[in-house]
C-alpha cells in the first residue's frame, strides 16, 4: 500500500468513525427527546408512563373547562368518547382552543392521573383536527367528517352535541 492510498484509507476510516459517533449521539439524543402520543383510552388504561413528557390528544369535553378566578390556571378534560383525561394548564390557551375542538396536549402525567400540561396546541382553523386526534376518533369508527356531521346534526350523544 503506497503512502497516498494509506492516507486516503486513514481519511475514510476517520470519516466513518466520525459519522458513527455522530449518529450514535444523535440517536441517543433522539431517544431522550421523543414525546410519544397516547390516546385518553390508553392513559385511562394506565398504558402511559407517569413523570415523563408525553403527548395526548382528543376533543375538549363540553362544559369541562374551569378557570381559576385569580390566576391563569385552567382545568379541562380531553376525551376520545371512551375515556376522559383531566388536564391542568397554567398559561395562555391558543386562539383556537374551544370546547368540542380537537387539541393536542404536551405534558406529564402525575400520580393522580391528571395531565400537567406544558403546552396546549390547537392549530390553524376551525375544521382542523390534529392528525393524532383524527386517528383516535377513527379507531372509534368516526372520521373527523363524520364527527363534525354528527355533531352538526345533533346525533352525537356523548358528549352532548355542541353546535359550532
Amino acid at each position, binding site marked *: 500500500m503506497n503512502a497516498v492510498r494509506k492516507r486516503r484509507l486513514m481519511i475514510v476510516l476517520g*470519516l466513518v468513525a*466520525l*459519522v458513527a459517533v*455522530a*449518529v450514535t*449521539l*444523535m440517536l441517543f*439524543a*433522539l431517544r*431522550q*427527546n*421523543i*414525546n*410519544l*402520543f397516547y390516546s385518553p383510552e390508553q392513559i385511562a388504561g394506565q398504558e402511559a408512563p407517569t413523570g415523563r*413528557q408525553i*403527548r395526548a390528544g382528543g376533543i375538549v369535553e363540553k362544559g369541562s373547562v374551569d*378557570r381559576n*378566578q*385569580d*390566576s*391563569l390556571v385552567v382545568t379541562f378534560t380531553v376525551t376520545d368518547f371512551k375515556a376522559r383525561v383531566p388536564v391542568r394548564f*397554567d*398559561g*395562555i*390557551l391558543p*386562539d*383556537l*382552543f374551544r370546547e368540542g375542538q380537537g387539541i393536542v396536549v*404536551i405534558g406529564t402525567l402525575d400520580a393522580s392521573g391528571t395531565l400537567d400540561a406544558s403546552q396546549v396546541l390547537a*392549530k*390553524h*382553523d*376551525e375544521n*382542523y383536527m*390534529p*392528525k*393524532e386526534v383524527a*386517528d383516535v376518533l377513527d379507531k372509534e369508527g368516526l372520521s373527523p367528517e363524520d364527527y363534525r356531521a354528527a355533531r352538526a346534526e345533533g346525533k352525537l350523544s356523548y358528549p352532548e352535541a355542541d353546535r359550532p
Partner: protein
Amino acid sequence: MLIDVLPEYGVYALILALALSLLQAVVPLIGAWQRRPLWMAFAQPMAWGQCLFLSLAFVALALGFLFNDFSVDYIANNSNSALPWYYRLCAVWGSHEGSMLLWSLLLSLWGLLVSVFSRSLPRDMLARVLGILGIISSGFLLFILLTSNPFTRTLPAAPAEGADLNPLLQDPGLIVHPPMLYMGYVGFSVAFAFAMAALLGGRLDAAWTRWARPWTTVAWAFLSLGIALGSWWAYYELGWGGWWFWDPVENASLMPWLVGTALMHSLAATEKRGTFKSWTVLLAICTFSLSLLGTFLVRSGVLTSVHSFASDPSRGIFILALLGLTVGGALLVFALRAPQVKSPVSFGWLSRDAFLLFNNIILLVMAITVLLGTLYPLILSSLGLGSISVGPPYFNALFVPLATVLCLFMGLGPLSRWKRMPKGELIKRCALGALVALVVGIGAPLMVGERPWHVSVALGLVLALWVAMTSLRDVVASALRHGLKGPARLSRSHYGMVLGHLGLAVSIVGITLVSNYHVERNVRLNVGQAVEVGGYRFKMTNLADVPGPNYQATRATLQVTRDGALIDLMHPEKRFYTARRQALTETALDAGLTRDLYVALGEELDNGDWALRVQVKPFVRWIWLGGVLMALGGGLAVWDKRYRRPIRRLGEKPS
C-alpha cells in the same frame, strides 16, 4: 370582457410554458450530446418564452385576485373582497396552487437570468444547464397542471364572496417571506444544473465551479434572507415570542441552507485549488435534493403546519416521484461519471482546504441531525409504529456542540493559507483574536450584565467574538501595514466573506443572549392593573373595541414605564376575522437594538380580566440582523469585479 376569460388565458399560458419547457428539456440536451449547434441554440429562446408565459399566467392569477373573480376556486378559497388590495395581491402565493406557480415562475426567472448572463459560457455547457433546468421546470409545470391548477373554476354557481385569506397570513411578512425563500430554494437548482451539466459533459474541472459560484452565492443569500424573514414573522405573528420552533417546515428550509453553505465554501475550494471536485458535485446534488424534499414535506400534507395546505395524497405522491427521479437520476449520473474525476492536489492538515473540509462535514452532520429529527416521526408513523414528536431539546442538544466546533474552524479558515499553513504562523495570527474573545466573552457578561453569569452565555460570546475577530483580521492587518490603502486593496469577495462571517457572529450573540436572558410572564390583568417584568412596568390603561376592514378587534393599551419614565404605549390586539370566524393575536412590540418588549393578548377571562403574555427579549433583533448581514455578504461577494470582467472561455474556442 377580457377579465372574464383571464383564467382560461392563464391555463393556456401554463400549457404553452410546459410545451416550451419540454422542448427546452429535450432538444438542447440532445444537441449537446450530438454536437448540433442549431439544436443547442434552442435552449435560450425556450427559456425566455417559458419565463414570458409563466409571467403571463402569474399576472392572470394576480388580476383575478385584484378583481375578486370568485368563480376561480383558488381565489374564492383564499381571498375576500374586504381584504385590502395588497394582501389580495400577495394571496396569490398564500396557498398551495399559487405558491407552486410562484415556484415555477421563479425557476423560469433563474433560467432566464442564466441565459442572459451566460456570454462567457461554452455553448454546449449552456445548452446542458438550460436543458436540466427545463427538465425540472417540466416536472413542476406538469405537477401544477395535473394536480394543482390554480385556475380551476366553479361554474356556473360561483360563490358571491370569498372565504378570505388565512388571518395568520394577512401580514407584510407574506409579501416578502415566500418570494425570498423560494428564490433561495429554487436558486439552488442552478448550481444543481451546472453540476449535472459538468457531469454530463465529462468536464468536471474547476471551470464549472467558477460559473456556478455566483449563482450559488446569490441563491444562498436569498435563502438566508428568507429564513431570517420567516423567523421574524413567526416571532411577532404567532404570538408566542419564539423565533425558532424546530417546526418541520422551518427545518425544511434550514437543511438546504446548511448544505448550501457547505456547497458555497466547497465551490470556493474547488475553484481556487481544484480540490474536493466530486464532493462539490455531490453537495450541489444534495442541496437541491433537500430543496425538493423541503417542498415535498411542506406541500404534500404529511406535515400539519401553517404551511401545509395540500392534503390531496396524489400531490404528495407526485412530488415524491419528482424527488425520487431527480435525486435518483442525479446520483446515477454522478455514479457513472464521477469516478473519472481525480483530484491530484494535496494539502496539509493545517490549511484552509482542511478547515473548509472539516466545516463542510460539520455542516453536513448538522443537516443530517435536522433531517433525522424531522423524518423520524414521519417514518415511524408511516410504518405504523406509533406517533411521536421530536422536541426542541433534541435539536438544541446537538446543535450547540456542533456549532461550537463549526465556529472554531470558521475562525481558523480565513487566517490560514491554502495548501499548507505552518503551525507557528497560524498560532501567531490567531493568538490576539483568541485572547480578546476569551477575555471579553467571559468578562463582559460579568461586568455589564444585570443577570448572573452563565457558562452558555460566555461560550456564545466567546465564539461570536472569535469568529468576528478572525474574519476582520486581514482587514485590520492590511490597514496597519499599508494605511488606508490596504483595506481598499482587498477584493469585494473578501469583504463578502467578512460580512457573512460577521453576520453569523451577530446572530450568535442574539441567539445566546435571548435564549439565556429573556424574561417571560403570563399574567392576568384588568384595566388599571400593572405587572413588573424584567425591570419594566406594564400598566393596562384601556381596553377598546376597534373595527378593522375584515375583522373586529379588541385593543388593549399598555403604558410601559421604567423607573417611572414612560417608555412606550403598546397596543396589542385580539382580532376576530369575520369571514373565517377565526381569532388571531396581534402582538405589540417595542423594538430596540438591545431589547424587545413583547406583549400579546391571550384570552378574555371572567370579569373583564385578560390573560397577557408579557416578555422582555434582549438582543433578539440581532438574530435577524445577522441574517441580513449574511445575505449582504453574499451580495457583495457576487459584486466582485472578477465576475464582471469577461472571462476567457475555458476548454472551448469560440466558434
